[in-house]
C-alpha cells in the first residue's frame, strides 16, 4: 500500500452535508442524525424513550432490508458478486503487508481476527480462511452487523432480541 493519501478536500469539513437518493440536499450530518434518531414517535413518553425508539427504527429498517436479501455473495454485494474475487485479492495484499511487513510467511503465528458485519462469510472464506489459514489457525470470529429487532407496527412497541454468542463447536 502506498503512503496515506486523500483527505485533501478542504471544503468538505464537519458538519458534513448530505444528499438523499435523488441528490436533494438534506442538511448537515449533526442535524440529520438528530432528526432520524430522535423521531417524535409517541407523545405519551419522554424524549429519552423516543430517542431509543427512533434509533431502533433506524436499525430496524436496515434489518428489514437485509432480511429480504438472498444469503449469497451476489446478494450481500447488491448484485455485484462479480467483484468479490478482485476484492479478496486486494484484501489479501493488505493483510500480507500489515501482518508480514518483511514479506515472509515463515513464522506461523496464531492470530485472532474478527470479521465484522460478516454476512455470509464472504470476506472470511476468501481472505482469512483461504489465504492465511495457517497463521490464523481457526481463530477467526464473525459478528453480524445489525440488531435483530422487530416492531409491532400497530402499537409502535419495539422488542429487541439478541441471541447469545453461539459456539461454533459446542
Amino acid at each position, binding site marked *: *500500500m502506498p*503512503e*496515506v*493519501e*486523500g483527505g485533501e*478536500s478542504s471544503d*468538505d469539513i464537519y458538519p*458534513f*452535508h*448530505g*444528499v438523499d*437518493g435523488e441528490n436533494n440536499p438534506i442538511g448537515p*450530518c449533526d442535524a440529520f*442524525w438528530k432528526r432520524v434518531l430522535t423521531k417524535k414517535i409517541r407523545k405519551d413518553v419522554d424524549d429519552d424513550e423516543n430517542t431509543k425508539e427512533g*434509533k431502533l427504527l*433506524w*436499525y430496524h*429498517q*436496515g*434489518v428489514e*432490508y*437485509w432480511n429480504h436479501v438472498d*444469503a449469497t455473495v451476489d446478494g*450481500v*454485494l447488491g448484485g455485484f458478486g462479480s*467483484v468479490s474475487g*478482485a*476484492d479478496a*485479492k*486486494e484484501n489479501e495484499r*493488505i493483510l500480507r*503487508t*500489515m501482518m508480514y511487513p518483511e514479506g515472509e510467511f515463515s513464522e506461523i503465528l496464531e*492470530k*485472532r*481476527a*474478527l470479521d*465484522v*458485519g*460478516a*454476512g*455470509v*462469510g464472504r*470476506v*472470511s472464506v476468501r*481472505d*482469512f480462511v483461504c489465504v492465511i489459514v495457517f497463521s490464523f489457525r*481457526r481463530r477467526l*470470529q*464473525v*459478528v*453480524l*452487523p*445489525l440488531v*435483530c429487532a422487530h416492531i409491532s407496527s400497530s402499537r409502535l412497541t419495539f422488542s429487541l432480541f*439478541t*441471541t447469545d*454468542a453461539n*459456539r*461454533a463447536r459446542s
Partner: protein
Amino acid sequence: MHHFIEKAKATLKDKVQNYFEESLEEFSFEEDGKALAGYDVIWIQWCIGQLSDADFIDLLKRAKVNADGFIVVKENNCSKGFHWDDQDSSITRSDNYFRWIFEQAGMEVVNSKMSDVFPKELFAVRTYVLKRSPPKKKSQ
C-alpha cells in the same frame, strides 16, 4: 438476518471459533459477561454505513485490538459529505467524513488506499488501516 449467519456457518463450519449473532452497535466484546481476548485484526467491510456516527465512534472506541493489532475499515466513499440511502437505512460517507470519525474515536490512520479493482460506475472504495492513537501527553 439470521439466514446470513446460517449460510456462513454452513460454509465456514469449525474454521471459525465463534459466531456472534449480535447487534454491531451493541456488541460488547464480551462473552457470557467475560471480556473477549483482544484481536490482531478487526476487519470492517461494507457494513459500517448502517451505523450512526455516535455508534460508529463508540464501536471503534470499545473495539478490543491487541497492542500490535489493527482495524481495517473498507468502505465506499462518496466525493463529498454523505449520501443517505433511505431503502436500507444507511449512509455513504466521504473520505473526510471517515477521517473525522476516526479522529473522534481516537484512531490514527496508519495507511489508506483507494481501490483500483472495482468498476468505475460504482462508488469509490477506500481501505483504511487504523491503530489506536497513543494518549496525548499533557503539555506543561
